């Protein structure tokens, strides 16, 4: 029987938003379903990705697993401990890195932050001293370890947050959008560190949430798609991409797309499928068209858009990506 680090069954979480209601004004109530019947099993030593757009429920799931939110229904076991019944044992088993840099004390130095959290996590003093030195070296922060965190860049703060999560050498790491807002250089180095050092070398079980498709594709052993609180699919990235079949993807960026043109695309007989997403703030659209042989149909497609009065801004042929699968399964894009 496979050994699982994290198991969730039927996890459900809703938030109630209330507004108004003073004197005679009617009180309005809105229920937002953050997680809807989530079942997940993450094996020991696995690097598991949770991929979904903003607001899909990724952070809510991480917070439930880290005991910061109580679910409305369902169960979650982390390292064999129930998050509701044995929260302290759960917390002792995990290290959590959230996005955003405000989980550290800015008026403490990096070293002081690590010393403080080492104590909170019951790391013996002699072990703590050694681990702090190792982690600062690993994160390339030793030279600036005695500077206040408020002077650090975002990337350095995120590295320090990862070091903090590692202090008590937990078996399981929950990384909630760890590269959000970081520049590409830092993001690349952090991704490489997570995959090569933490997962491959140290054998940590990692749950990584992200809305960057490449991150999930390149790093994860398995990926779960989450959208509007529901798990839509779970599998290895390659097997997920095979859902598109042996199709090729023609990606066209057009300046604008009328509704009538959009519905007419569906009438192109050679198309297996297609998806449309916003190209950016300038009102452009990205159309991804899935078909067996792009070369045979590209002229017809160009003619179609020209006749419809859509200016083609760019045209490229791609292999299917996880985003293609996501759009196919949910009809929605992952976001920026």
């Amino acid at each position, binding site marked *: 029987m496979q050994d699982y680090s994290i198991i969730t069954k039927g996890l459900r*979480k809703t*938030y109630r938003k209330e507004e108004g209601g003073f004197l005679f004004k009617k009180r309005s109530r809105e229920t937002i379903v*953050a997680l809807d019947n989530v079942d997940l099993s993450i094996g020991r030593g696995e690097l598991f990705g949770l991929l979904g757009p903003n607001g899909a429920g990724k952070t*809510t799931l991480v*917070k439930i697993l*880290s*005991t*910061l*939110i*109580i679910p*409305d229904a369902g169960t979650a076991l982390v390292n064999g401990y129930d998050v509701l019944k044995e929260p*302290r*044992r759960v*917390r*002792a088993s*995990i290290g*959590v890195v*959230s996005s*955003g840099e*405000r*989980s*550290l*004390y*800015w*008026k*403490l130095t990096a070293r*002081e932050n690590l010393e*403080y*959290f080492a*104590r*909170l*996590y*019951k790391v013996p003093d002699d072990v703590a001293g050694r681990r702090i030195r190792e982690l600062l070296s690993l994160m390339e922060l030793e030279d600036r370890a005695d500077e*206040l965190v408020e002077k650090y860049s975002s990337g350095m703060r995120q590295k320090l947050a990862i070091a*903090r999560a590692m202090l008590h050498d937990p078996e399981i790491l929950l990384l909630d959008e760890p590269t959000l807002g970081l520049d590409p250089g830092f993001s690349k180095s952090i991704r490489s560190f997570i995959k090569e050092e933490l997962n491959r070398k140290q054998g940590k079980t990692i749950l990584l949430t992200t809305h960057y498709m490449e991150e999930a594709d390149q790093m994860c052993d398995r990926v779960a798609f989450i959208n509007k609180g529901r798990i839509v699919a779970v599998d290895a990235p390659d097997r997920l991409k095979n859902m598109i079949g042996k199709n090729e993807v023609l990606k066209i960026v057009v300046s604008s797309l009328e509704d009538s043109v959009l519905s007419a695309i569906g009438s192109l007989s050679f198309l297996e499928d297609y998806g449309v997403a916003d190209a950016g703030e300038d009102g452009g659209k990205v159309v991804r068209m899935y078909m067996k042989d792009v070369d045979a149909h590209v002229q017809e497609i160009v003619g179609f858009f020209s006749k419809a009065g859509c200016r083609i801004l760019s045209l490229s042929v791609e292999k299917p990506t996880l985003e293609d699968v996501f759009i196919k399964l949910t009809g929605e894009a992952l976001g920026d």
Partner: protein
Amino acid sequence: MSLRDELRVVATVLKKELVLYFRYPVWVLFDALMPLLWVLSLVIYGRALVGSPYSANLARLTNTGDYVSFTIVGMIVSSFAYSTLWGMSYALRGEQWSGTLESTFLAPCNRFSILLGKAFSSMLTTAAWVALQITLVSIVFGLNINVLNLPAALLFFLIALPSFLGIGFSLAGVVLDFKEHNAFVNFLSSLLGLLLPISYPLSILPSVLRFFSYLLPPTYAIEGMRSILIMNSSLSELTNLVIPLVFFDCFWILVGVTVFVREERRVLKKGTLGYY
């Protein structure tokens, strides 16, 4: 987690709070100066009213006419009481504001160890400024308190301390959920400023207000400390104050722990722990 581990957590949080406190030197300066200004304004007011350091009417009511010493003892005890009552909730609110509350609560230690660390750090800084206050007032205006009775006064304060901590736990719990902290503390501190016998004896208050004063542990603490430091009473003569305090200790620790645990659970259900 063992008791030793939890005590280490208390000490660690205390140390961190102090380090952070002193990294804002302007705040430290203001914190040091404010109690001096409060004392000054009470002394000035007293002098305007009676024209000398001695009030015959106060002597008639309380066996001491030295309103400066009378008020200082009240201010010292109330300062410590306030630091315990809202030291924890201010610190938690500060962590919510800076975004560090969730990472603190992720640690596998008892929440109350964290709260106690914050309370004790608040009391330590208060002790420093109180010491400064007493020194300056003694030099400038003269102070008639019996320093030989300080150990007994400290013991009396320790008897009262658990009730302050219990109230502090309750407030800390409430503040986790009910985010309007400043308004709440403003209201409570204003109310306490009225009901506690800081600068006047309880007999001055209308009976309705006096009734509520007697429900407050700091009232007994102030009366007891005054009796010891100014009237030279011994602890054994103060059973009428010690017994209610012991009762309040048990009551407020029970209530405080219950309220905090319940409010924390409520906030975890709502998912708003880290929200400012």
